[in-house]
C-alpha cells in the first residue's frame, strides 16, 4: 500500500503558489473542499485560475477567495450566486470563462484519463464554439474541446483510507471524482479517514492511484443553498 496520508492542512497544500491553476470539486455548495478553501484563504495565494462548476456564495465556498481577490480567472458552467463575483466580473477585475457543464466534467475526465481532446455536441453553433474546431460525425456537428491542465485538484469525499481510496456520498460526489488525477497533485479531504482495509475494494469510487495526498477534514459546515421542504399532512 502506498500511503497518501498527510497530517496537517499545511502539508496537504504544500506547493500551492500564486498564479496556479486549481480544480475544486463541488456543485453549488454541495461537496466542496471546505478545508482546502479555508487554507487557501490563509495562505493568501493570488492570481489563481479556478476550475469549478460554480463560484460559491458571498460568504462561503469560493466566495471566500473572491472576497480576498485571490482569483484571477474562474472557469465554471454557472456563476453569479454572489454579489462580489458580479462586481468583480462587471468591473473587469475577474476573468470568467463559461463552459457547458458536461463539457467541464469531461475536460476534467479527459485530463484524468490521458485524452488530449474530445468531440462534444454541446455548444455547437453558439458562442462557446467560436474559434474552436467543429466537425461532422454521422450527420451531427461536434466541437473539439481540450483536456484541462491544472496544478492542483482539491476534492472532498465522504470516506477515504490512507491508500487514497475515496467514497462519496449522495450528490456531493458530482465533479469530485472527475477531478481526481486531473491535476499534477490531487489533494483529497475526507469526512472520515478510515484504516486501510476497511473499505470494500468493490465499492471504491476513486482508487488511490488518482490521489496524491489525503487528510482528515474538520468542522464541515455543509451549508444548504436552497433549503426546500414539503409539508407533512
Amino acid at each position, binding site marked *: 500500500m502506498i500511503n497518501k496520508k498527510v497530517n496537517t492542512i499545511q502539508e496537504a497544500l504544500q506547493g500551492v503558489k500564486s498564479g496556479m491553476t486549481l480544480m475544486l470539486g463541488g*456543485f*453549488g*455548495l*454541495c*461537496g466542496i473542499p471546505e478545508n482546502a478553501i479555508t487554507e487557501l484563504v490563509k495562505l493568501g495565494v493570488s492570481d489563481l485560475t479556478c476550475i469549478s*462548476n460554480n463560484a460559491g456564495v458571498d460568504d462561503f465556498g469560493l466566495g471566500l477567495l473572491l472576497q480576498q481577490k485571490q482569483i484571477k480567472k474562474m472557469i*465554471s*458552467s*454557472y*456563476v*453569479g450566486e454572489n454579489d462580489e463575483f*458580479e462586481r468583480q*466580473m*462587471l468591473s473587469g477585475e475577474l476573468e*470568467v470563462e*463559461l463552459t*457547458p*457543464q*458536461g*463539457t*467541464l*466534467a*469531461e475536460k*476534467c*475526465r479527459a485530463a484524468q484519463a490521458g485524452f488530449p481532446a474530445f468531440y*462534444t*455536441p*454541446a*455548444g*455547437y*453553433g*453558439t*458562442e*462557446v464554439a467560436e474559434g474552436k474546431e467543429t466537425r461532422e460525425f454521422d450527420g451531427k456537428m461536434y466541437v473539439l474541446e481540450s483536456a484541462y491542465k491544472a496544478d492542483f485538484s482539491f476534492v472532498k469525499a*465522504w470516506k477515504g483510507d490512507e491508500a487514497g481510496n475515496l467514497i*462519496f*456520498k*449522495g*450528490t*456531493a*460526489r*458530482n*465533479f*469530485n*471524482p*472527475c477531478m481526481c488525477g486531473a491535476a499534477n497533485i490531487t489533494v483529497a479531504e475526507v469526512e472520515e479517514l478510515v484504516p486501510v482495509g476497511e473499505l470494500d475494494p468493490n465499492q471504491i*469510487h476513486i482508487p488511490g492511484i488518482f490521489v496524491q495526498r489525503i487528510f482528515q477534514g474538520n468542522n464541515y459546515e*455543509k*451549508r*444548504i*443553498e*436552497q*433549503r*426546500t*421542504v*414539503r*409539508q*407533512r399532512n
Partner: protein
Amino acid sequence: MLDKNGIAKRIAKEVQNGYYVNLGIGIPTLVANFVRDDIEVEFQSENGVLGMGPFPFEGEEDADIINAGKQTITTLPGASFFDSATSFSMIRGQHVHLTILGAMEVAENGDIANWKIPGKMVKGMGGAMDLVASAENIIVAMMHTNKHGDSKILKKCTLPLTGVGCVKKVVTNLAVLEVKNNAFHLIERAPGVSVEEIQKATEGTLVVEGNIPEMIL
C-alpha cells in the same frame, strides 16, 4: 390562457411510460407534480442523481442530496448517485428520453436562447447546452410573450444561442407548437385562447392547419 402550473400540467401529458426525464429550473420543475402516477417515470438531475423524489419533510433535509437547482431533495427506491461525467454520459448518450426546459426565445428553425442577455450579468449555461445539443426530445416551457407583450416565438433568435435546431415542441401559456420545416405548427390552443390571439402573439411563421383543438388538461 394557462398559468405556470397549467403549462406544467400540459407538458406532463407528454411524459410517457418508461421515460427518463430531465427537468430544468422553473416551470419544468413543476411538471413532476402532474405526471400520471400509473406510468413508470424516473427523473434525472444533472448534478448526479437518478430517481428523484419529492422535497424532504422539514428536518429531514440532507445537504449532500440536492438537485441541479441546489434544492434539497429525496430519492425513491431504485435511485442512484453518480459523478458529473457519468451524468452527462446519460444526457449526451441519449439515455435520457425527454428534456424539459425554459427559454427566453425560440425560433422557427428550432434554435433556442436561454442563457445570456448581453449587457446583463451572465450567470452561465449550466447544463443547458449539453442538454439541448444531445436530447432527441426537447420540450420548451415558456411564456408566449415577454412582459412588454413582445413575442418570444420568433423567426430568428436575437439573443445568444444555447443550441441550434434542437427544439421539437413548445408549450406556452397560449398554445402547443410543434417545430418542423422551419415553422411553428399550431397543435393546440390553451383554454379560451383563439387562433387569432396566438397568431398575434407569434412573430415566427405559424402554420395553422384544419381545426385546432383546445387543450385537454
